[in-house]
């Protein structure tokens, strides 16, 4: 860069950026878009629910539901209690389904409040979700990974209700460098 800078005066670079900024900012949405937006807004307002009652804020979005520190702590504690108390062994099998394929998993995150600090788990379900679906919840998705699925494991209760979830990273296929 220093070499390049010495051959290209700073004033020229500054001018180039300034003019590019001006040209960039000259673009705006089509003029008709505002009218279309307001028309759509009017339609939404005439909707019976929105007209009769003011819109309520959404409660329990993914941030508050999953990333709230207390719930995350509950999730970790719950998963540890579950592994120690039940002794089912699914935890061990899910972290390494076979001896030669390791998987990276996050801690379990609660999606429902446990009753009496215990989780009544009856089923572990492995799911694969489109990243595209995560956009609906405002979760940032890198464009280049838009079509890669996200794998997760769900803990279900006796009635099939979801209790906790954790994400599973793709299998690590590299071989160990050291054997012991």
């Amino acid at each position, binding site marked *: 860069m220093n070499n*390049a800078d010495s051959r290209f005066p700073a004033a020229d670079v500054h001018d180039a950026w*300034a003019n*590019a900024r001006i040209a960039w*900012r000259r673009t*705006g949405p089509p003029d008709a*878009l505002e009218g279309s937006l*307001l028309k759509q807004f009017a339609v939404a307002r005439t909707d019976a629910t929105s007209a009769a009652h003011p819109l309520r804020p*959404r409660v329990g979005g993914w941030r508050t539901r999953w990333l709230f520190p207390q719930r995350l702590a509950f999730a970790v504690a719950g998963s540890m209690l579950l592994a120690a108390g039940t002794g089912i062994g699914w935890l061990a099998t899910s972290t390494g389904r076979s001896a030669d394929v390791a998987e990276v998993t996050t801690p379990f995150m609660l999606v429902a409040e446990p009753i009496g600090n215990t989780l009544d788990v009856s089923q572990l379900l492995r799911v694969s979700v489109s990243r595209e679906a995560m956009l609906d919840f405002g979760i940032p998705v890198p464009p280049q990974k838009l079509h890669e699925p996200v794998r997760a494991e769900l803990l279900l209760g006796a009635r099939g209700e979801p209790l906790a979830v954790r994400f599973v990273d793709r299998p690590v296929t590299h071989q160990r460098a050291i054997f012991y």
Partner: protein
Amino acid sequence: MTLLTRVRQGDAAALSTLYRRHSGVVFRHARIHAPHCDAAADATQETFLWLATQGAFSYDRAQGSLAAFLCGVVRNQVLRIRAQDARQPLSLEDVEAPSPDGDEDAIQDALAPLLAQERGQALLDALRELPPEHREVVALIEFEEFSYAETAAILGCAIGTVRSRLHRAKAALHQRLMELFPPERRNAA
């Protein structure tokens, strides 16, 4: 009473004011990833409609400016449209940088402004050749003047990632300018 509060209560005039204030940056950011101009317009409309119907409750001023918040939303909207749009690959032709419309002739009247604009346009052309993740960082920081923190929030990545992408992008752009405007040509000009 803030504009957002009025929008929550169904005030169309407040929505119109918000739209006129932020639609430019939202639309331009949408065009970076949108497969075509109509998709960018659709995403822009969906973003403001979402803001008016439910998004106004989700926005927290402590998380950054409303413009940055809307850019993050429109980015998701565009990515969803891209995914639904027959899974078309991103075309550089479709996401071409904004071009001046009617006033280009006026600028070409004088030599100095022409040369200045030529360099700026060359930089925009070079920007089109960058990967989208580099292009959007340059656009957000250098053209829209968002902070590093706001840009990181929009893109959902770390500030360090933003810095490194910007550094690489500017190095590539500078190199391109060097190729387009070699010393002898600039001296002649």
